[in-house]
């Protein structure tokens, strides 16, 4: 006899089965979304397909930094830590600063704490580090090899002043561009084609150009004031991410070299492209090949807002990117700055300040720097920490811990959208709290090397493909 099935019971059973299956499906969706290669924003360029944020909706007429006083241009010789380190070389405490150039004396008179940090403290740290690196540190073999390889390819730096270097060779008459808006569109498309994840265009504010060049490189004479060349009318900002998984394993395992290298390549390609159209162009690229400050130009170009840690936060990559700039005179329509609520979020968040092992990031309010209000960053403390740990060069921990630096999956996109659309600011408080509870870091002291009381810790575990032990036999030749 054919078994009889009650129709209503059948529907209930199907419903219950469907609910269980749908729940299981959501579990698998979640685990795959967490690992999805497509969430590694920018790691394949997708021809600009990653620059998806609707900036027009959040554009504002004024940048989110505040102009509060008389502005002045930065003196790169002392205000850029890499240049300052060169300026104070050979310092002897007993002799004092008397033999150093006036600008060095003036800087350290105004910043006495930096003198101690840049000399005595740094020497002590370097001595400890020299001892420490004598011991074998096998755990970094793969990450160092990877970092070094990532930095192995890059175009030659700029070696002549703007009036010589920036212009196309020969008597190229610039092609007549039809319309600045179209040119902007073209430049953006081409930048993405060259490998950039992000691109924005700003009218260049001369306040961001150095008053004195860093170390007299790039064709500038040391200690001679720099004029802002007339043909530096626009700044095109490009940016690419650092590999996501190692970036979360900072400070010791991450590297900037991958993004530095690609960012430089993109900027030099873009420079060549613009010169081929007959216009002037000059790349300003990482590590330290700059004639200007990058973060405020990124803000002007609408790519993001400057955070408490001084790095620009973008909606797509958070602060996980390395930018380059091309200054040019090809006529373009600049982008507008955006306001995505970073200024308010940073007021409550402070995760970077709490995690920063060196105490370089301010816990306090913004201060006036050269006529603009922003959070202060103690670059001497920051750079001293770079030598207080082992592994790859640099730190980048503030990049890794910032809640905006998240891969692009539904969860983090949803959090960003809640923060963007909540006018009360309550969600910012909740999200900042969630960041601390759900994504905690280490005790800051643990990030130091053992001889400085730490464990050489990383924010997140090293990715499997950088685990030396799993691939290299490091046991003493038995």
């Amino acid at each position, binding site marked *: 006899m054919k078994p*009889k*099935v*009650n*129709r*209503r019971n*059948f*529907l*209930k*059973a*199907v*419903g*219950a*089965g*469907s*609910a269980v*299956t*749908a*729940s299981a*499906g*959501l*579990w*698998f*969706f*979640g*685990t*795959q*979304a*967490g*690992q*999805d290669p*497509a969430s590694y924003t920018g790691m394949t360029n997708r021809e600009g397909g990653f620059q998806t944020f609707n900036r027009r909706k959040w554009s504002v007429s004024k940048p989110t930094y505040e102009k509060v006083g008389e502005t002045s241009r930065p003196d790169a010789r002392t205000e850029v830590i890499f240049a300052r380190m060169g300026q104070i070389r050979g310092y002897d405490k007993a002799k004092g600063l008397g033999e150093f150039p006036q600008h060095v004396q003036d800087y350290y008179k105004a910043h006495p704490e930096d003198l101690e940090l840049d000399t005595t403290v740094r020497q002590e740290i370097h001595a400890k580090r020299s001892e420490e690196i004598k011991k074998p540190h096998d755990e970094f073999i793969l990450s160092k090899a990877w970092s070094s390889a990532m930095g192995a390819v890059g175009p030659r730096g700029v070696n002549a002043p703007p009036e010589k270097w920036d212009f196309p060779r020969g008597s190229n008459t610039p092609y007549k561009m039809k319309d600045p808006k179209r040119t902007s569109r073209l430049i953006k498309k081409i930048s993405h084609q060259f490998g950039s994840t992000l691109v924005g265009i700003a009218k260049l504010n001369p306040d961001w150009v150095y008053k004195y060049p860093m170390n007299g490189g790039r064709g500038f004479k040391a200690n001679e004031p720099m004029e802002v060349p007339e043909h530096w009318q626009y700044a095109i900002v490009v940016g690419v991410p650092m590999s996501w998984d190692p970036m979360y394993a900072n400070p010791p395992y991450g590297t900037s070299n991958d993004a530095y290298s690609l960012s430089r390549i993109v900027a030099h390609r873009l420079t060549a492209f613009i010169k081929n159209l007959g216009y002037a162009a000059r790349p300003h690229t990482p590590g330290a090949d700059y004639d200007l400050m990058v973060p405020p130009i990124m803000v002007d170009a609408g790519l993001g807002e400057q955070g408490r840690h001084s790095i620009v936060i973008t909606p797509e990559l958070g602060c996980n990117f390395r930018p380059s700039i091309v200054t040019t005179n090809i006529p373009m329509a600049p982008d507008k700055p955006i306001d995505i609520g970073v200024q308010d979020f940073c007021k409550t968040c402070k995760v970077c300040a709490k995690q920063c092992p060196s105490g370089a990031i301010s816990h306090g309010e913004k201060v006036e720097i050269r006529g603009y209000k922003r959070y202060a960053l103690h670059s001497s403390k920051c750079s001293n920490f770079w030598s207080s740990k082992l592994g790859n060069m640099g730190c980048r921990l503030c990049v890794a811990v910032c809640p905006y630096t998240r*891969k692009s*999956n*539904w*969860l983090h996109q949803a959090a960003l959208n809640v923060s963007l659309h909540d006018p009360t600011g309550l969600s910012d408080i909740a999200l900042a709290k*969630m960041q601390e*509870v*759900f*994504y*905690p870091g280490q005790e800051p002291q643990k990030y130091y090397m053992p001889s400085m009381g730490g464990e050489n810790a990383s924010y*997140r*575990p090293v990715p499997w493909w950088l685990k030396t032990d799993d691939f290299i036999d490091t046991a003493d030749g038995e």
Partner: protein
Amino acid sequence: MWFFTSGAFWFIEGILCALAVIGLKVWMEDRNTPMRLWKWVLVGAWMLLLGFTIAFIGTSVGENEMVAAKKGGIIFSVICVIFGAVVWQLLQIGRVKNTGDLKTDKNEEV
């Protein structure tokens, strides 16, 4: 793009949800519990919360963020259970006990 993050997955997920809703409807009818619009809204909200909780834990595990998976999982699961219990109590409003069937085809066979 993997299957579970593809459009095809969400298509199937939609069908499964629809079947679950039909099952719930039949079940509530059999329990002589009328379902009003506001009740469906509550059920929908609870389903969203449950879905969010499961997907949150899964995504955190996928990202290797075990602290988020554990802490978030506990917090959101507790909220989900409490909200579920409240919704269940509210669904009982208007239930007719021990009377005849609301549907005449209750014992229909297929």
